[in-house]
């Protein structure tokens, strides 16, 4: 009786809420049972791998990291470990955490929409699906001995000969002196950031307008632009490598990019 009375008191309040029990708990329960069923069947049918005992003196070729890190291992083809393995992953994590603070679009909060947040979704799609997931797929299925490219159905030939014809960008541009090569590389890397930051600014100005830029503020703009431009530096370097066999853009005594 108390329950009915309570409902009567509440009924004038209009809201679209439903009771968690049973409406939400029911969905969770059924989906949970279904997933557990699939998991148990999968575990009955497919055994987890167990290879021969660990032997630090016998390195398998190729040595692959767990699949979820193969995107990072694949990036090692294009950048040195300090960059591909430490700086870029840290930027991914920090960049993800920044998202709520650099995205000031009040629309699309709590519902699906593409039209109202086209650029946000396309950027996320590019970073997550195009870069991260496809790098994992390449690393998992298309890399064999010597980290060379193989088709998934192709025989892994450990003696596959791949010509190492990569050269540094300053060399391609005609620099032969060590010092001036280094200066040239530095100019190219800094130039890339300056030019793409400016391009990013003009692009935002065109598609979002001056009003938006003022609301967005300098700090948000710079953080977003730096993260965005750094993300694009990966496909840029991939292009330089695949099209022009460029090994490093910038060679210094301390680090290479």
């Amino acid at each position, binding site marked *: 009786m108390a*329950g*009915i009375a309570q409902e009567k008191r509440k009924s004038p309040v209009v809201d*679209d*809420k*439903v*009771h*968690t*029990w*049973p*409406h*939400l*708990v029911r*969905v*969770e329960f059924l989906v*949970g049972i279904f*997933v*557990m069923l699939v*998991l*148990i069947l*999968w*575990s*009955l049918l497919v*055994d*987890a*791998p*167990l*290879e*021969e*005992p*660990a*032997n*630090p003196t*016998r390195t*398998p070729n190729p*040595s692959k*990291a*767990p*699949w*979820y890190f193969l995107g990072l291992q694949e990036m090692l083809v294009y950048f040195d*470990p*300090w960059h591909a393995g*430490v*700086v870029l992953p840290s930027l991914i994590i920090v960049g*993800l*955490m920044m*998202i*709520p603070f650099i*995205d000031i*679009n*009040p*629309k*699309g909060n*709590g*519902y*699906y*929409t593409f039209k109202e947040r086209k650029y946000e979704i396309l950027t*996320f799609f590019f970073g*997550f699906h195009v870069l991260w997931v496809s790098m994992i797929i390449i690393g998992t299925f298309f890399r064999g001995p010597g980290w060379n490219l193989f088709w998934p159905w192709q025989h892994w030939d450990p003696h596959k000969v791949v010509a190492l014809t990569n050269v540094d960008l300053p060399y391609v541009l005609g620099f032969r002196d060590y010092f001036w090569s280094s200066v040239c590389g530095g100019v190219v890397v800094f130039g890339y950031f300056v030019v793409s930051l400016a391009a990013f600014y003009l692009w935002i100005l065109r598609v979002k307008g001056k009003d938006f830029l003022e609301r967005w503020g300098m700090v948000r703009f710079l953080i977003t632009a730096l993260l965005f431009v750094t993300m694009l530096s990966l496909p840029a370097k991939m292009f330089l490598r695949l099209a022009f066999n460029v090994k490093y853009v910038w060679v210094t005594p*301390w*680090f290479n990019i």
Partner: protein
Amino acid sequence: MKKWEEIKRDITENQVWKAIFRHGYEDTPRNRVLMVTANVWLHLHPAKVRRHGVRMRFTWCMGGLTFLMFLVTVVTGIYLMFYYRPVAEYAYADMKYLEFDMPFGMLMRNMHRWSAHTMVVFVWLHMFRVFLTGSYKPPREFNWIVGVLLLVLTLLLSFTGYLLPWDQLSIWAVTVGSNMARATPLLGHEGPFADLVGANPIYDARAFLFGGGEIGPHTLLRFYILHCIFIPMVASLLMAIHFWRIRRDSFSGPPL
């Protein structure tokens, strides 16, 4: 002979039963709320939720299923811990023992492995869904940060567990996966500016992770403790915060 109703009443209407089960399945709005608020597990949910936030095509159920996968790894993981010793001499033999001699050993190991992989996929899909619905926007910014930390911890949980079978697959995958640590700028002995800090092969970021210059028995124990105690504890704490914040910031839907 007593009637069915009377037997039922005898069972449910006594002090012991009522001390444990506070209320029945009576379908009244009051009882529906009690079902959630008086239950330690369900009270992570608010008593009422938005109609559209319940739909599967909105949530994809990915957050909840990630948690389910975590629970599966905890349960199966505890079972495996009974039979596994994180000592280089025994670890691999224990794996074989577990697979061939222990009741349900292979099944438990498979479930542990596959649910861990599934958890990684689900947590990524969960992040993608939360991004698509803009559910990180005010007032949920902080919960997104906690979520990113949980995503990193999921990967670390999976990675530290990868070493434990102590077979060729695990030590070389972990070797490759943590080689990057020795290239950390300043802190890794192969990284830029390492000589400024004095990092060397047995005293740098990777040695700290491994408990020595090379992967070895010390690494196994270190990863075992990280995998079974340290990371699950931190992850559980963050999960508690994560779920609590979902509830406080109104579950799935535009803020009021």
